[in-house]
Every structure is written in structure tokens, then in C-alpha cells.
């Protein structure tokens, strides 16, 4: 089920990335939908599935962006492997999770920009790192909101079941 969700999210993110760029093209602080699936994959299905998924995502981004294939694919699968190992070792708390996403997205942004610069034959400038940090922050906020909405929706039936215990008491209070 988690794998299915991860695949659906990757597809939706790839389809909607140009829409986001067109809608928020004037803002530097906008989420990068193409990289958001990296964080989602590592959190939803850490391990070999995340590594393969992120490698495929990198390959697709390579095909969309540059003349040379393979650079992003290699970087992203390595990032997913390290992220998956780190996810297994840390406690499942919100601050740790958000910090993990932020790190993964920042490194992915940096990698992506370095590959773009290298393919254009230009040196990487420190100012691009600042932009990468801005983009990673906004993408982390976006992924956090998405995660929060998803976890709330998945808990709704459980919440409704737990509220049934109070129904007789609420009825008596009404009488």
C-alpha cells in the first residue's frame, strides 16, 4: 500500500511540476515538485524500494533536463540509500523527520544544480547554494503539509471508532 502511494505521488509530482512552475514562476521560494518524491519515497518505503525509486526519478529528471544521462540517477540513489539507513536509526518524531527531509532535499537540490552547471560547462557558484536552501525549505514545508494531511486522513476512521465509546455518555448528558 505504501509503495502504491509512493508511486502515485511520484507520478503526480512529475505531472504537476510544470503547473507549479507556471503558477508560482515569479517566486524564488516555491516548492520543487520534481524533488519532493525523494523525501516521500525515503519516508514511506525506506530500503531497496526507495533506492530504486529515487534512481528512476533521477533518470527521468536526467532525460527531461540534460544531454548526459545517469548523473542525477546515481546521486539520487546514493542519497536514498543513505537516507534509508538514517531513517532506520532515528526515532520517528516530527522534528527528526522534518530535519531528515530538509537534509535530503537540500543535498538533492545541490546535486541537481551542480549537474546542471557541469552540463552547461559552467562553474558552480555559492549563490546557487542559497537558492537551493530556499527551494529545499519550501519543498520541506510542502511535503510536511502533505504528510500531515495524509496522516490525518488515515486516522479519521480510527478517530470515529474511538469517539463511539463516548456516544452513550453524550446521550445521557442530553437527557
Amino acid at each position, binding site marked *: 500500500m505504501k509503495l502504491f502511494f509512493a508511486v502515485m505521488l511520484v507520478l503526480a509530482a512529475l*505531472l504537476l511540476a510544470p503547473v507549479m512552475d507556471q503558477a508560482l*514562476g515569479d517566486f524564488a521560494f516555491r516548492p520543487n515538485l520534481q524533488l519532493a518524491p525523494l523525501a516521500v519515497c525515503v519516508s514511506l518505503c*525506506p530500503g531497496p524500494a526507495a533506492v530504486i525509486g529515487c534512481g528512476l526519478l533521477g533518470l527521468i529528471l536526467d*532525460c527531461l533536463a540534460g544531454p548526459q544521462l545517469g548523473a542525477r540517477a546515481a546521486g539520487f540513489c546514493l542519497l536514498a*540509500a543513505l537516507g534509508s539507513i538514517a531513517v*532506520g536509526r532515528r526515532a520517528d518524531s516530527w522534528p527528526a523527520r522534518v530535519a531528515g527531509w530538509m537534509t535530503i532535499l537540500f543535498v538533492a537540490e545541490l546535486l541537481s544544480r551542480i549537474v546542471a552547471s557541469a552540463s552547461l560547462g559552467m562553474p558552480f557558484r555559492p549563490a546557487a547554494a542559497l537558492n537551493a536552501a530556499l527551494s529545499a525549505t519550501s519543498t520541506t514545508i510542502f511535503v510536511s503539509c502533505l504528510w500531515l494531511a495524509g496522516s490525518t486522513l488515515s486516522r479519521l476512521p480510527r478517530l470515529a471508532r474511538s469517539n463511539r465509546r463516548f456516544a452513550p455518555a453524550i446521550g445521557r448528558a442530553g437527557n
Partner: protein
Amino acid sequence: MRRAPRTRSTLLTAAATLTAAASLFLSPRGVQRPLRNAVLDVVAPGQAWALSRYDSCRQLILARYARLTSGARTSSTTIAPETESRLSALEQACRRLRLENARLRDELSLAEKYGVSPVPGNLQPLPELPTVVRAAMIGAGARAFAVEQLLGAGRGQGLAESDVVVDESGPCLDQGSEAGLEPELDVLIGRCVVGRIASVGRWSATLEPITDPRYRGLAQIVRPSDQGGSFGAEGILIGQGSELLKLAEVPTTQSVRVGDEVYTSDRDRRFPIPLYYGRVVRVEEAGRSWDISVRPAVRLSDLKTVAVLKLGRRAGKMLAE
């Protein structure tokens, strides 16, 4: 307890994926190109569909919002998007038929004047058909990134200035000399002229739109009438840096009126068929020639992709002659 096997399998998968990616990176262009094309064929139509849905939804919402805020009953005057696209298609078909009608009328008048040749003329061998390169307009975000990268790079750091063309004044295309683009090639969308290529880098090119003050092109007026259309005067179409174009060198002895259509001229021989520039919106007398303003058919801000017309070798030779 389960952590160690999972870590090991993760690392093994990562090693396998890394090897595959590295071999892909080192593989020749001939291997990479089919894979890249296949992925683009799968992803690009989906993205284009999502963008078109977004655009139509946005327009619908904006129209409803405008109707709500104005408070007036505009339902009878507003045009639904489907009707608008149908109208636009009909207008295009009408333009095509009018042009064909004008060509046939021209041939008829020549035949009436000089008679029909008793011997069918030898068909000239057709010049090589022109090919078209699809190019996307580079968005503001991508261009800002490229500008930011270029500003910090200097000649001493090994940057070849022809690798990327980033001209602040002109819009950019995502194809360059690698795709066979050259300066002066014409840029179209459908049957309408968008402009021509100003300068070419290895992976990008700058576009000189028809509204650019440097743009010049030979143009011909086609006059719509009840019987179809007929060819009118020829003139030189000049960009003015504003939203209107100027059609110069049309003598006042020729008749021109508002609503006439302006096409590329046959004598220009740049285009295999006449292509549409726009419609005459203002005509004033200025000495011996008309002062004509033309509204271009294409708005650059509406475009996401364009087609660059590459002439075949023989067609290029004809043009040079």
C-alpha cells in the same frame, strides 16, 4: 534485529543502481538518445495535458470571478472556451480558404490576360522539403538560473560564450546549434510567423520576435471580400518594439483598408506557403505611402513551444540566389 539485513540489501541495491547509472553515464550518445526520447515521449504529453487543464481551469475561474465581481449579467456576451476554440478554428479555415481563393483568382486573371498554355509546363523538381525543429520557450525561472550562473563565470574560468546564449532583451528557446539551429531561421507557430532566430548557442537560442525593432520582412496584403479573397499590395513589415507592427512602402495608389490580412510574400521565398502575420488595424495617409499598423496574430506571452523552420539545402540555395 532486522536492521542489519535491510541495511545490507539497501547498500547492495544502491551499488547495483550506481553501477547501472555509471554505465549509462559512460555509454555513447547513440545509446542514451533512444532512452531519453522514450522517457520524453511518456512524460511530456502528460505534462502538456496537465498544463492545458490548468490553463483552461484558470481561465474559467478568472471568467467566473470577473462575472461575480462585475455583478452584471454578462452571460449573453461572454463566450464559452469551447465556442472560442471553435471560432478560432473556423477563422483559421477561413483564412486558408481565402488565401487559396486569392491564388486561384491570380492564376485566372493571368490566364485571361495571356491565355492558357497549350503545352502543359514541365514541373520543376521540388526543392528539398523544409524540416521543423520543435523548441520550447525557456521560462523566467530557468532563465534567471542561467543568468545567475553566467554572471559569475568568466572567460578565465574556461567559459565559452557561445555555449549558452542568454540575451536579456529577447526570449530564449531551449534548442541550439546541437539541434541544427542557425541564425536567421524563421520561427513559426502553426501557420503564423513568430519571428526569427537572432543568435544561437550550443543548447539555446534567442528569438527575435516580429515585434522587435530589428525585424524586417516582405509582406503581402490579402483582402477579404464576399467572393473570397484577393492579393493586394506588397510592403515591408517592420517591428516597432510595441504590440503593433508597421507595414511600410505601400503606395497610396494601392487600396488598403482596416481588416485586411497580412501574409508573408511569395517573392520573399523564405516560406514554402504564405504564412500569416496579422491584421490591419489602422490606415492613415502619410505622403506618398500609407501608414499602416498591423496587429500580430501571435502573442509571445501565450506561447510555450514554437517550430523553427529549417530550409533544405536546395531551398536554401534558392533563397541565397
